[in-house]
């Protein structure tokens, strides 16, 4: 299986997100999926750019799709924001012929062409649908039995389901199934499906804090070994933002590690915490790593 892959802006360039890329590369390689990076990838121009000008946003996103189309490959991405952008291009081009023409005119002026034939796929959906639980289980090396995780699907992988076509967002189960499949417990808790306020960072930081605080208080009460996020913004909020919330609202016992979704699989596939970047996260993952009963050789010092 061969896919083009778009990493987005944040995943390959933020300290605490580098482990997302590392784990994704390791997991896909372990599963025999060949990936080709979109050449000289540019920003997918997600919701904040749509807010400034929707047509510019669609044309910018279409640039990376055009590169995948040139290679004759479908486009995989671990970033939910990118996924949303690419799905919106295809949806808009199909629904509004006039907008399609405008996007294609803009691309032509940059020497590009996109006909709308590339399917955009989210990493987590791809793992569940195209790889499947049987194959994932057969590739397991380590059972994550005894680890209690709080999974956040995030907003932009699922909502609105009519655009993204994965699963209705109110009670999704597919990503939990994979976590349970590798032996961990996926804990249900209040607020896990609610927005983290990530897109308010930059427009209204106090508001972004207020929304995030609600999410972290809920997660804290759920008594988790770790949160698990799919979306880059969810991770930035919950991991990097956790100390801000702890100090700003005086929540003394707030100390929840935040894993990237493919890191859970990478651990089950036997990769060490160090090679999937667990030491790069802002909130220490060492308690979680200790619970995984690592041998010293496997890099338990992370």
């Amino acid at each position: 299986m061969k896919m083009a892959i778009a990493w987005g802006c944040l995943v390959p360039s933020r300290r605490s997100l580098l482990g997302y890329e590392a784990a994704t590369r390791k997991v896909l390689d372990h599963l025999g999926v060949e990936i080709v990076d979109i050449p000289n990838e540019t920003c997918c121009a997600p919701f904040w750019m749509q807010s400034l000008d929707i047509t510019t946003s669609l044309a910018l996103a279409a640039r990376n799709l055009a590169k995948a189309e040139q290679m004759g490959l479908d486009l995989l991405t671990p970033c939910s924001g990118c996924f949303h952008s690419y799905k919106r291009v295809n949806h808009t081009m199909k629904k509004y012929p006039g907008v399609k023409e405008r996007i294609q005119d803009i691309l032509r002026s940059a020497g590009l062409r996109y006909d709308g034939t590339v399917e955009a796929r989210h990493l987590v959906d791809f793992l569940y649908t195209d790889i499947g639980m049987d194959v994932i289980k057969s590739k397991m090396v380590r059972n994550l039995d005894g680890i209690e995780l709080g999974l956040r699907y995030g907003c932009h992988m699922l909502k609105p389901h009519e655009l993204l076509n994965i699963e209705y967002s109110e009670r999704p189960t597919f990503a939990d199934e994979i976590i349970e499949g590798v032996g961990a417990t996926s804990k249900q808790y209040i607020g896990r499906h609610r927005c983290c306020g990530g897109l308010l960072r930059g427009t209204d930081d106090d508001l972004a804090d207020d929304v995030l605080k609600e999410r972290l208080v809920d997660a804290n009460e759920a008594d988790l070994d770790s949160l698990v996020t799919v979306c880059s913004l969810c991770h930035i909020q919950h991991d990097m933002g956790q100390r801000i919330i702890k100090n700003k609202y005086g929540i003394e016992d707030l100390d929840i590690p935040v894993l990237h979704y493919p890191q859970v699989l990478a651990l089950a596939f036997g990769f060490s915490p160090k090679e999937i970047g667990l030491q790069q996260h802002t909130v220490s993952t060492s308690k979680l790593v200790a619970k995984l009963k690592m041998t010293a050789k496997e890099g338990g010092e992370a």
Partner: protein
Amino acid sequence: MGQTHEVRTQKDDVPIRDEDVDREFKYEVAGHFGGEGLLRCLKCGACSGGCPVGAVTDYRPRKVLGNVLLGLKDLVLSSDDIWMCAACFTCEERCVQEVNFTDVVTILRNMAVREGHASQGYLDMARTVSQHGRVTPVTHSVQRMREKLGLPELQEPDMEELTKILSAAGFDKILAIYTGRDMSE
């Protein structure tokens, strides 16, 4: 009962006046792609009920929709409210009338941007992208961390293609509205 309330009789107290109303506004919004659902709104409030921002502030998507339907164009486009949506799409997912509020907000923001009301944070991000091709420029220390993790060297974004796209889309002209304007004050 028995209590006396001050009776509001002053014309100034009437919250909405004819001269504030632009009757064409809702059709203007509904005429943009993605805005068609606006005219189907029943103002039932399911959007406000599920709103994560509404849970911590008095922001209400229904109020924004109500104001648009009333035709309060100037008020809507200059208000902070339209910049408070976190784009979680919960309202869009739940709306029985398929109003697609998040898409409506995008249209309202696009209009507001052309009138000089863009969010400073989003403008800064757009400037970064127009200069570096990505929203977070890659630093040397990130390059070193990538090396340590065994990640391949990051390719430079194609600035030539990106610049041509921004210019052909007319985004230059939008950024030009804000040139020299220090909005951080």
